[in-house]
């Protein structure tokens, strides 16, 4: 009795959780009534019965109480998710490999697309960690044929008062300084800034205070704001660092503030010192030195275009005031563009190209999956016809198919997102760009809510697309008999379905061809860039930047002698075969340039001010760099301070300075034609062009090389060494020599020239790697699609093939038949792809180097590749077709 008391309420409670409310009362009432009735005969039987009823109720899916519908001859469409899920699960069980392939393909598509979105978002969209960072702009000066310049203080003060679109503007000049805090001397990337630089950026010190206008006044005591990383590194993160006295370049300064982590404007800066000058009283030369990086904040609502108009007006006024400024233009660009070096929009275009490629890949994935789903639908045609005959409605079947597509889409999307988490960090290690500042923030391709939203939307999109492409109108009852008759095991594939399969596969091939052509062009362009003759040796050459104490700059003669001694000492290090000094490493940011005048060639147009790259080097440097000597001689030990003044020029300078003449023996001088303070220099040699400019990598620039002993240069010298040994092992030895030479001289790590050059092409390499990977994936998917479709068609055609063989067709003809089928589809896709590519390729010309958008080699190569790959894909199905046993099949 006690069991009865417990069992019934328990079962009733359980079922109440499960049953629809509309039913609960009647079902529970029935159970209780029946249970009591049975208990009167046998209590144990009744309990067993009750338990069984409860179990069945609990195990079966929750029945939903239906709404009353109009009487109809068609059964109700099952909209219940449980039913649809079960049907999806059933189809998965029936063909697990097919389903897993679909999911994997979608995962690859969604994963790569989401990862690229994360990268694009991080690089181009995510706001910088500064307040209202979208209003921050940087700017540069342009002069025909040259690297973008910085801004000068004259322009800074003109912009500050004259550009109404700017809320505020500040400038910074980067410099490498030695910092001594306690006993330790370190080399630190620093910047002297106007007091409004940090406030324009909107950065607020985490500790202490920022640079105030009072700090920036000439004659104020020296102060410095340091970065968070420097604070951690040199001051162990102690709050007492604020207020401490340090020595910067031999001058005492007080640490007044510590900035929050991550801030390193203008370029990897860790130390900010006030500029402390009165611009109006500066000598003209200093006022016009274009060595400052501006940072301005637009007023809310102000457009950068408007600011540029105002700047252009000011530039005109400046050109009238300073003849030196004629022919210069200024441009304000978004801070982000400046940081990622996207001055001419090339980076954005390359990123756009990768996005387009990933979209194409996604389309291939969708079509591929649709293709597979369609193949399966063909397999099921008969089953479905039977189900329709049994009373299933077309709507029901469509719903089931949709549920299936949805389940595949969802699973693929989820797997794709998981893939993104793995791929996105991989993309950031590919280093698509080398930002000059805020590197970690810009190359942080993390998975966040936004990325997940993008991924989810993409998978929803692919699901819908797949469902649409693979949708086949459901069998209506009138077709049932026809379908059943046409889809028997001994008949082939329907004509319509076969055409559709062929078209889908051809479409995939067309998109793959597009991808291949695009990536082929970019790859060839990258190869051309990489193989460009840069005019100097990069293998086995490395450089280190030296930071000299100010006292070494007081006397040029002794500095030149000191550096010669240092070079000799470094040259003695075992493993180092040669060493030299130069003021400029080729292809680095920042270049020293100089006006020049050729003897006996007055400038025709006063606005035409010739400029050459200005490099002051020790005698061994040019030989070490491996430049080609075209005429005359290189610089030598005999070009001492007391010897006649000489210069070695590049071919481009020779072309510009002495067109059509022998430059050797001609005299040339620094400065404009009106400036006679500099002595004449005799040209003793002409060397091949050396690529010097980072941004104009594609063009040759004029440059000259002057002996260090003869030319006073205040530029920080670079120590360049040549060695066949591993550069890493030489670092310590070189530094030790430098320290022994003078403890106040700091030397940076040795950086191989290979690295300098590789850094130049990071964005191109990123595009080449990404596009090749995407194109290969596209090709692979298209071939899988082709293979799948052809095998299916062959399988469906087996009876026909068997019949042909039985009536005497040679097996070779059967193979030919299959290959013809494949070639038809492949050619169709290839031709369509090439046509579309030919039309669209002109859009690529902006990112191509020495490769035409209609490069015949690329197009032809892709066509041949496609045909070869298609024949390979046809091989297995063709062989299978040839081995059909007519007797077995017809029996």
């Amino acid at each position, binding site marked *: 009795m006690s069991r009865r008391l417990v069992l019934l309420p328990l079962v009733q409670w359980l079922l109440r959780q499960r049953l629809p409310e509309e039913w609960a009362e*009647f079902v529970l*009432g029935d159970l209780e*009534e029946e249970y009591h009735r049975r208990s009167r005969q046998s209590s144990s039987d009744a309990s067993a019965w009750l338990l069984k009823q409860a179990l069945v109720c609990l195990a*079966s899916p929750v029945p939903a109480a239906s709404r*009353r519908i109009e*009487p109809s*001859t068609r059964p109700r469409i099952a909209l219940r998710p449980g039913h649809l899920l079960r049907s999806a699960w059933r189809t998965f069980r029936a063909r697990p490999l097919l389903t897993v392939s679909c999911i994997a393909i979608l995962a690859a598509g969604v994963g790569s697309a989401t990862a690229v979105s994360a990268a694009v978002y991080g690089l181009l969209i995510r706001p910088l960690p500064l307040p209202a960072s979208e209003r921050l702009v940087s700017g540069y000066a342009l002069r025909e044929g040259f690297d973008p310049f910085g801004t000068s203080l004259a322009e800074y003060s003109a912009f500050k008062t004259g550009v109404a679109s700017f809320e505020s503007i500040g400038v910074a000049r980067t410099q490498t300084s030695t910092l001594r805090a306690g006993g330790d001397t370190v080399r630190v990337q620093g910047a002297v800034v106007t007091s409004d630089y940090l406030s324009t950026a909107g950065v607020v010190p985490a500790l202490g205070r920022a640079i105030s206008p009072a700090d920036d006044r000439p004659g104020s005591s020296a102060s410095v704001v340091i970065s968070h990383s420097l604070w951690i590194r040199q001051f162990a993160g102690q709050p007492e660092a604020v207020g401490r006295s340090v020595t910067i370049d031999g001058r005492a300064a007080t640490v007044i503030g510590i900035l929050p982590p991550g801030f390193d404007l203008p370029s990897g800066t860790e130390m900010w010192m006030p500029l402390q000058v009165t611009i109006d009283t500066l000598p003209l030369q200093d006022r016009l030195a274009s060595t400052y990086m501006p940072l301005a904040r637009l007023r809310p609502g102000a457009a950068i275009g408007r600011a540029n108009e105002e700047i252009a007006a000011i530039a005109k006024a400046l050109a009238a005031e300073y003849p030196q400024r004629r022919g210069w233009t200024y441009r304000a660009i978004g801070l982000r563009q400046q940081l990622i070096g996207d001055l001419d929009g090339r980076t954005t275009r390359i990123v756009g190209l990768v996005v387009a490629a990933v979209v194409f890949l996604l389309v291939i994935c969708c079509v591929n999956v649709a293709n597979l789903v369609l193949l399966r639908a063909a397999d099921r045609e*008969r089953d479905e016809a039977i189900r329709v*005959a049994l009373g299933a409605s077309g709507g029901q079947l469509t719903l089931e198919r949709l549920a299936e597509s949805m389940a595949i889409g969802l699973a693929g999307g989820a797997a794709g997102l998981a893939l993104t988490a793995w791929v996105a960090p991989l993309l950031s290690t590919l280093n698509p760009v080398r930002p000059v500042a805020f590197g970690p923030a810009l190359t942080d391709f993390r998975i966040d809510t936004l990325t997940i939203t993008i991924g989810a939307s993409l998978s929803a999109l692919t699901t819908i697309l797949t469902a649409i492409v693979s949708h086949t109108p459901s069998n209506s009852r009138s077709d049932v008999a026809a379908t059943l008759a046409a889809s028997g095991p001994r008949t082939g594939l329907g004509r319509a379905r076969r055409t559709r399969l062929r078209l889908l596969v051809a479409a995939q091939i067309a998109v793959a061809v597009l991808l291949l052509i695009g990536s082929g062009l970019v790859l060839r362009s990258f190869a051309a860039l990489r193989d460009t003759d840069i005019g100097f040796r990069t293998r086995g050459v490395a450089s280190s930047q030296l930071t000299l104490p100010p006292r070494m700059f007081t006397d040029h003669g002794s500095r030149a002698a000191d550096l010669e001694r240092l070079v000799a000492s470094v040259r003695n290090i075992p493993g180092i075969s040669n060493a030299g000094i130069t003021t400029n490493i080729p292809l680095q940011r920042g270049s020293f340039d100089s006006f020049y005048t050729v003897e006996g060639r007055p400038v025709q147009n006063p606005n035409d001010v010739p400029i050459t790259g200005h490099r002051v080097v020790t005698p061994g440097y040019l030989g070490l760099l491996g430049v080609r000597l075209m005429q005359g001689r290189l610089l030598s030990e005999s070009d001492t301070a007391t010897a006649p003044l000489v210069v070695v020029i590049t071919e481009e300078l020779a072309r510009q300075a002495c067109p059509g003449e022998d430059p050797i023996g001609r005299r040339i001088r620094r400065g404009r034609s009106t400036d006679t303070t500099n002595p004449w220099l005799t040209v003793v040699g002409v060397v091949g062009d050396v690529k010097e400019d980072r941004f104009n990598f594609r063009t040759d620039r004029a440059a000259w090389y002057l002996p260090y002993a003869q030319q006073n240069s205040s530029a920080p010298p670079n120590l360049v060494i040549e060695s066949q040994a591993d550069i890493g092992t030489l670092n310590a030895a070189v530094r030790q020599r430098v320290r022994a030479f003078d403890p106040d001289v700091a030397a940076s790590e040795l950086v191989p020239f290979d690295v300098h050059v590789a850094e130049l092409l990071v964005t191109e390499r990123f595009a080449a790697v990404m596009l090749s990977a995407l194109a290969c994936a596209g090709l692979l998917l298209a071939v899988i699609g082709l293979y799948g479709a052809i095998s299916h068609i062959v399988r469906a055609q087996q009876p026909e093939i068997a019949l042909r063989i039985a009536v005497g067709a040679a097996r070779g003809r059967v193979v030919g038949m299959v290959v013809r089928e494949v070639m038809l589809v492949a050619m169709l896709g290839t031709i369509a792809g090439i046509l579309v590519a030919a039309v669209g390729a002109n859009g690529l010309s902006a990112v191509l180097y020495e490769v035409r958008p209609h490069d015949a080699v690329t197009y032809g190569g892709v066509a041949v590749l496609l045909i070869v790959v298609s024949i390979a894909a046809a091989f297995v199905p063709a062989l299978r077709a040839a081995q059909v046993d007519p007797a077995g099949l017809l029996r």
Partner: protein
Amino acid sequence: MRLERQRIITPTMWFNTDAPPLGDFEQLTMLAVLRLDEDAYGAAIQREIESQTGRVVSVNAIYTTLDRLEAKGLLRSWIGAPTQERGGRRKKHYALEPLGLTAISQAYRTIRRMSRGLERFLERS
């Protein structure tokens, strides 16, 4: 080509008439409702099927089927009074709609027509 897992095909399903074709269990349920007349409600229908066919069916299945038949317009229902032995709960009674009667008689006619002349096989086994 594989067939879907074996399904019971009832002959009535092949006819396209005004009344929708009935499944096997639907037929049993309809017949039970018809047999029980005014007294057709869940527990009674369940009992009737069990006593006539020996099939033990779950109350869940019964209600799902009744609900579906009602939605198709083959049955109608009404709520009775609460009783003591049901723990004070009410009954839900069912009766055949005219369309339901058409559907079940159609099924019956079909089976009878199809089995005509086969009695010696059918009744022996």
